[in-house]
């Protein structure tokens, strides 16, 4: 075997090598734990944009220096980081939001949502998004409104965006 290949595959356990291993392990843990966290989608609430069982990453750096804006798909944490909601921001603080016969109304105007497919008959009286909150809804509106988790959530719970 080529000595360089052998040294690469079977390195001697020198202090420099162990330090490299430690640095790679620590940076991997920090990157995938706090910057770009892997996740698997469970459920149909974001279909057809995000399908059940698909793999993705949450890019957490997105909101380190900015806030979520309308149209963003965001991950929202619950008790911790292991389970998150994946929803779309449809309104931000201070805006009014409502559903009339399946159409989303923001600030008293209907919103064209190209990402929503299938029939929707939702009706929700107008309400205002409170300060420090964003209004989140899934793309799949073909399920009954009562079975769909949506509503306003604190900005502090927004973790990031899916990478693709």
């Amino acid at each position, binding site marked *: 075997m080529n000595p360089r290949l052998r040294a690469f595959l079977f390195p001697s356990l020198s202090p420099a090598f162990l330090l490299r291993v430690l640095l790679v392990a620590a940076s991997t843990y920090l990157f995938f734990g706090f910057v770009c966290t892997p996740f698997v989608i*469970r*459920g149909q609430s974001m279909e057809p944009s995000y399908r059940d069982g698909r793999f993705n990453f949450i890019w957490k750096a997105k909101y380190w220096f900015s806030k979520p804006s309308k149209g963003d798909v965001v991950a*929202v944490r*619950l*008790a*911790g*980081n*292991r*389970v998150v*909601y994946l*929803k779309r921001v449809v309104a931000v603080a201070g805006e009014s939001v409502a559903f009339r016969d399946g159409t989303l109304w923001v600030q008293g105007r209907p919103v064209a949502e190209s990402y929503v497919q299938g029939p929707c008959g939702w009706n*929700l009286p107008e309400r205002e998004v409170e300060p420090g909150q964003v209004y*989140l809804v899934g793309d799949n509106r073909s399920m009954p409104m009562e079975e769909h*988790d*949506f*509503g*306003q*959530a604190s900005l502090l*719970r927004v973790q990031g965006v899916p990478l693709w």
Partner: protein
Amino acid sequence: MVTRNRILAAFGFILLAWGLWYLFPTRERQVRRQMNALAQWASKDAGEGALAAVQAAREAKDFFADPCEWQADAFNLSGQVAPDEIARYEFAARSRFDTLSVKLYDLSIDFSQDGAAHVTTTVRVEGTSKEADPVNETHEVRGTLAKQDGKWLLKKVTVVEVLRK
């Protein structure tokens, strides 16, 4: 011979340490165990008979204080609830579903000055109804447990509304 004795002594020491760790858990591990037992109790395998369902529902008193305060607006459940009533809810739920899997994620535990344990966790419920419809619910739940007669019992349960319609 000396080496063999040392290995045996090290093995014995590890076994003893593990036994002490297992038999005398810290109060945090006691609460964690209780919460995991609760999740297992609420889960249901396919083909569970009526007797097993009744037996399982009766075990509610092993997990809930009398009374237990509930704040679960999403389920129209609020107020003081006795373990017998929880057992009835549990039996009704078990009879509506074919399978139920209850899992806890991100379980964190804090203790207050009065010795009560405050837990926060994400509860994920998956399964199928009797009509073969999929069940998929996720909620953040906060609970307060107090030790009564050597058992950690839930005396308050709050289902957090992460998304408020």
